[in-house]
């Protein structure tokens, strides 16, 4: 994906921000490096296992680049402060995990409403509630899409390696600037705490999306007047534009419509907020596909699970099953169309997730009854046993009937814990 803003301007990363080199580092630290390379100037954060290393790595390297890490009093403050910083003209993000993410829910709606570009890095852990803080999970996926009240759309991307945590931070900032919406990097403890080779490229190889800055006459500026692609242009606070930016439903001037006369005043705010993502979905969505040409069974996965699935796919291929891999790099917006196309072609989808079924329901929805959908669940605090995925693939390849529900596999773990599985 080439990152160009609406004027076709290209921007490179600032060499001061890029610690070029080859490292052996964990995903969290790579994320901190990635954020700085992307030009992030402000992180308001709050420590939470297993995401703290990302904040720590940023705090160590930020001051030399004129960026700042401030540890706020709680997650509510963290996310509110980055929205303020975003409107003051800098790139911002916050870093958290499940419980902190839950606290940010109200502000995510505010971010969507104010169309402040910002990034949230969520290193998921086992939930619900405090759950298993030190171990992995993928159970915040639906929350990232639906967690705040009212209608809005976000972009969520899911990296599967420390290298991708670096790369995806840059991608996330670019998407945030381009679509002016909250962008979630939904990683997990496993990727966050996994140490691997991370290559930080030279600055000139990193392309950044510049902010969509308004350049016309001051008096004509309307903060929420959308461009062709439904995304409005932005200015900085303090530049004399006499901004009125509100979290209440507003018109193009930003004025709340609640106090305006006339009950039938149409409330188009939320409509545009969802449309700007839905109608641009094709441009946003990125998928990694492997061996799909002849596939009868497709394994749909994201994040760390897509790496575990590789083993299951290899084993199945060895047994002669035609199985392909579809990795959701972008989880939200969901690739409805691609899944729908595949459903018409293949027998079944196998969806391993480290949760008890979240994204699988969207796969089911988009397959329109044309392909079976098999879920390989995992409660968290660990990753799948590839054998479970293999068995699910084998089952999916042999099942002849069209089954109108998500077929939930009993995993080895479940059988072990509940002696044959839950009833």
């Amino acid at each position: 994906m080439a990152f160009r803003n609406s004027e076709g301007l290209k921007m490179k990363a600032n060499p001061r921000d890029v610690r070029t080199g080859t490292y052996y580092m964990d995903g969290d630290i790579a994320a901190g490096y990635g954020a700085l390379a992307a030009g992030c100037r402000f992180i308001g954060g709050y420590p939470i296992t297993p995401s703290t290393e990302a904040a720590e790595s940023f705090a160590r390297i930020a001051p030399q680049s004129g960026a700042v890490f401030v540890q706020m009093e709680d997650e509510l403050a963290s996310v509110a402060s980055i929205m303020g910083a975003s409107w003051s003209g800098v790139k911002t993000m916050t870093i958290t995990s499940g419980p902190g993410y839950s606290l940010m829910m109200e502000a995510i709606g505010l971010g969507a409403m104010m169309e402040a570009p910002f990034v949230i890095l969520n290193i998921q852990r086992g939930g619900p509630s405090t759950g298993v803080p030190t171990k992995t999970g993928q159970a915040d996926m639906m929350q990232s899409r639906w967690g705040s009240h009212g209608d809005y759309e976000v972009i969520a991307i899911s990296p599967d390696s420390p290298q991708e945590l670096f790369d995806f931070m840059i991608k996330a900032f670019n998407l945030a600037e381009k679509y002016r919406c909250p962008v979630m990097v939904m990683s997990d403890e496993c990727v966050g705490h996994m140490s691997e080779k991370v290559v930080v490229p030279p600055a000139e190889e990193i392309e950044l999306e510049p902010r969509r800055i308004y350049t016309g006459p001051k008096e004509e500026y309307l903060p929420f007047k959308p461009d062709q692609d439904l995304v409005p242009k932005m200015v900085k606070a303090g530049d004399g534009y006499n901004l009125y930016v509100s979290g209440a439903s507003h018109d193009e001037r930003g004025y709340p419509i609640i106090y305006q006369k006339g009950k039938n005043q149409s409330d188009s705010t939320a409509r545009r907020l969802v449309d700007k993502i839905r109608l641009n979905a094709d441009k946003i969505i990125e998928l990694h596909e492997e061996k799909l040409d002849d596939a009868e069974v497709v394994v749909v996965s994201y994040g760390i699970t897509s790496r575990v699935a590789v083993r299951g796919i290899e084993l199945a291929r060895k047994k002669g099953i035609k199985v392909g891999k579809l990795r959701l790099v972008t989880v939200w917006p969901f690739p409805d169309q691609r899944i729908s196309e595949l459903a018409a072609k293949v027998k079944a989808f196998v969806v391993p997730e480290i949760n008890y079924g979240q994204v699988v329901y969207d796969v089911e929805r988009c397959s329109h009854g044309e392909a079976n959908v098999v879920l390989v669940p995992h409660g968290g605090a660990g990753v799948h046993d590839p054998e479970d995925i293999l068995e699910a693939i084998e089952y999916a390849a042999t099942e002849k009937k069209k089954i109108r529900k998500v077929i939930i596999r009993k995993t080895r773990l479940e059988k072990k814990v509940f002696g044959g599985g839950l009833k």
Partner: protein
Amino acid sequence: MESKEMAEKNVLPKDVPTMDVHPMDDVLRMDRIPHIWCPGCGIGTAVTAFAEGLKKAEIDLQKTCIVSGIGCTGRVAGYVKLDSFHTTHGRGIAFATGIQVANPDLKVIVFSGDGDIMSIGGNHFIHAARRNVNMLVICVNNFIYAMTGGQVAPTTPHAAYATTSPFGAVEPPFNIPYIADSSGAVYVARWTVLQVRRLTDSIAEALKKPGFSVIEVISPCAMYYSRINRLGDGLDMMKFYHDNTEIRHGEDTKNLDIGFQTKIIVGKFVDRERPTYMDSYNKWLSGTVKD
């Protein structure tokens, strides 16, 4: 049992009395021992003082419950044999408020750390103090977020190092007794874990006091705070407390700031009477409130 065996093997002198039960058995959950705290940590001492204080106060333990938030000190509730709740980060006081107001017969203790109570739970702290909800808050202050690996806390002294302030903390720390006092707490004390006897007495005293009581317990964190700042181990910190604490009962709370390795003033600072939340509530309900 072990000590008995040791006595039999003549490791201990014969005349040392041994017993089958640990004196803490009735207030601590022995089935959860060993605990999670690191060697040199002061939280265990604070728990001992608390257990002793509970006994000393001679309150009805059946009607006593303990609530913790998240963090190293947040685990305390799990080791105390009362009805105990390990809740979410920073919300111990809010949770306890619900318990207390729904059943005013209960005495609630919130036992948690500085990050939990003062940072994320700061709002609940000042509001519960303002309302004067009947509870005892024991806030173990180790100057750092230890559970997550040594991040800067709102109590970290200026210029002290932490992992998220790798070049020294830039913010001045909270003076916990001062903010408790100004929000309306009726009992405010501060001790270090070195002053076990005074801390125990203080806990026993506060347990019997109706209203919002706060005891700040300064505790070493040998694993993070001391290590990052090169202050030695737990014992060195205890020596530091020994040499650098001064007891000043009744000191004006605004003079209680703690700097990096500066003198720590301890003592009981506030002990006053104010109607508790339930008193005001009942009065209001019965319509006798001045209109």
